[in-house]
């Protein structure tokens, strides 16, 4: 119990500052892409790109939609994703939570923020997977080309009709991952210091 209401050591507190620093700008400068999909076909050797940011989806959307209508896939448009309307705000909010945790300097507050952040990230992954499933399973039955139902890859390679598809996390996600890891890192470092002090 003491542990939870205790303060961080200066070094660990700095890690929480850093996490806040990473997260707070997301809403104000949502520039880093978080996920990307690249699609290659024999006549698209240069590849078509879909780039997902926290607030929008961009890239060769029109070309991909034009091609997708042959298999009856729902058109992809940024307006369809409610997620883009709260994701940057939520991430920035977690940043402020981290900031608060570092300012107040109470472990419980920081851990609570971290847990909420973890829950949110998990939810977003599941949500993304659901979208992918949805796109590949709600095909217009009147489509000129009838495909077996499919799910585009969440991560990694997949052959879909004449397209080879690669799905990968982008720098935004990597940076968020680093911010997320700072939480456990702070605790591990503290435990190590505590052990050393005990010896």
């Amino acid at each position, binding site marked *: 119990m003491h542990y939870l209401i205790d303060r961080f050591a200066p070094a660990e507190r700095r890690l929480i500052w850093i996490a806040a620093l990473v997260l707070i700008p997301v809403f104000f400068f949502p520039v880093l892409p978080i996920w990307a999909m690249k699609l290659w076909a024999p006549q698209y050797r240069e590849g078509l790109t879909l780039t997902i940011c926290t607030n929008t989806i*961009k890239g*060769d*959307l*029109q*070309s991909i*939609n*034009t*091609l997708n*209508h*042959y298999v009856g896939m*729902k*058109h992809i*448009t*940024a*307006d369809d994703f409610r997620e883009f309307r709260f994701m940057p705000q939520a991430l920035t909010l977690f940043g402020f939570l981290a900031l608060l945790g570092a300012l107040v300097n109470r472990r419980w507050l920081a851990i609570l923020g971290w847990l909420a952040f973890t829950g949110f990230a998990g939810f977003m992954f599941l949500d993304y997977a659901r979208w992918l499933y949805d796109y590949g399973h709600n095909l217009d039955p009147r489509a*000129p*080309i009838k495909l077996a139902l499919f799910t585009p890859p969440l991560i990694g390679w997949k052959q879909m009709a004449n397209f080879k598809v690669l799905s990968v996390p982008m720098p935004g996600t990597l940076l968020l991952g680093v911010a997320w890891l700072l939480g456990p890192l702070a605790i591990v470092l503290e435990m190590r210091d505590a052990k050393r002090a005990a010896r």
Partner: protein
Amino acid sequence: MNHSSERRGSRIAAPGIAALALAAALTGCAAPRGATGSAAEKVYVKPGTYDAYYAFLSGGHSGQVYVYGIPSCRHITTIPVFTPEPAVGYGVDEETKAQLGGRTWGDAHHPGLSETDGDYDGRWLFINDMPGARIARIDLRDFKTREIFGPIPNVSAAHACPFPTPNTEYVFAASRFSTPVPNRPEKIADYAKQFRGVVAGVKVDPKSGHMSLGFEILMPPFDWDLADAGKGPSHGWEFFTCYNSEQAYDSLEVKASQNEMDFIAAVDWRAAQAAVDAGKAKTVGGAPMLDPRDVPGLVYLFPVPKSPHGVDVDPSGEYVCASGKLQAEVSVFSVKKILAAIAAKRFDGERMGIPVLKYEDVIEAKVPVGLGPLHTQFDGKGNAYTSLFLDSQIAKWKIGPPWNVEDKIDVYYSIGHLMASEGDTRHPTGEYVVALDKLSKDRYINVGPTKPEGAQLIDIRGTKMELLYDFPTYLEPHYVQMIRAEKLKPIDVYPLAENNRPGAVKRAEDARVERKGARVDVYMVAVRSHFTPDVIRVVEGDDVYFHVTNVEQDSDIAHGFGVLWSSNNMQIEPGETKTMHWKADRAGVVPFYCSNFCSALHQEMQGYLEVHPRGTPVAAMQRPDPRKVAEVAALMAHPGDVR
């Protein structure tokens, strides 16, 4: 210890390898591509790789421009210029129809790339229609003919055309066949008295490339033949050759070949523009016409032996090389001497008020190249290359003393123009010469009496010229411009967001058919693989205007739009809108379809026109089936997201 020294070794090796790679890359740049190896290796451009040069060949009396890749000599595309081309709808859609003005023929002789500081800038290609006295401007951003200027008033047979100045300030046109000016019925026997030649200076807008008439100059009724712009010390002058200073009007073959000397006219185009601006021009046939008698210093003549054809200014701008067709020499004139003679006013009489310089005062050298010299090109390394029509050869000669011929090569057969890579600029690249042969005879598998034209690629990188390749062309290239490929940056698609044409519809929701009296406007969207709308109701006698927008933004996804039983077909590129008129002249059903293979369901890309009998009431506004619109709208949502 051992371990660490190994590591040190690898640390040294890594930069070493990098340096080697860099050196290889550098030598790759320094040595011209394919400078060694067999002729076959030098022209081989591997599948999927690109040529080093664009070559723009005039299409002569086909009225078009052919684009070839050099050194592979592959025909890349044809640009329709003065002749309708129904495949792409050139001269069929309303804009290009208006541009051609009802003409269906042109004789395109001399392509001229736009220049900045005397070097190609890759912005535009100008080309003349000799008999129509027109100049076309092709925009090299999309390889489309964007302007046809003319007919230029008073100019008859614009052969010395366009030959741009070093900053594309002007392109020119001069009369090859003199006529009465302004044109009126006259007895041909009054030729010397009533007929006149004309030199026209056409101003080019430095931003838009738009052409407008700057000035015209009344010239003696000689046959003004070819031109070239001065540069460096000769900047500000345009040189024109002529034959028929005899002023013969019949049997020219004999009568125009009597004089020992004809002329080059040196036109001071800056003085011409200044004179027009000062109000010294009279309006003749709608053009500001200058008479050299009223404007001293505007034009000078200097004698050139034996009916000269080509005139070519060397890269330094100091030498003017002219080829008398009926002699075996190239006459080289010194710009320094010309300017000195003009300054000293050392004249030998005048022709129609134009002072004539003394031949001995301006001639620098006579180079014994061979029989029938026509045109000269340059390699930027101090050498010149002259085509020899009668000898069917190219002679390579040294610019400067002792002015000797260094090498000759046979061509097949009867060469006219030749073009060295960037060979008429201040900095020729000295890699290739393209020879344009007037006869190909037996060089290709026989296709009957109409033989293809012969073009040949010659390597000029070594001390000896080497014939690399023969390639046939369609009728009939007169001249070429060859520009390094990286100087052009053509677009891939027309940005849809920048398409502001009045007839453009970018979303299926906006597609519609509007009727005003007997005029029907169809605002249509084309996208893989359907048109919206694809069922259209009209009435017999309607004038139907199809405004078709290709909303694709993918490279090479062009759509065609062809109407059955008509000459109505056009190709619409990604992001482009074109308008085409079709007359519903008979009741019935008329299908239309995509005529350019676009996609897996291209065959399905079609539609129908219901043509009702005269008098049938039809709604003033038709919108396509809303279900279909919803489908297409969903597909086309957010064009703003595009790229």
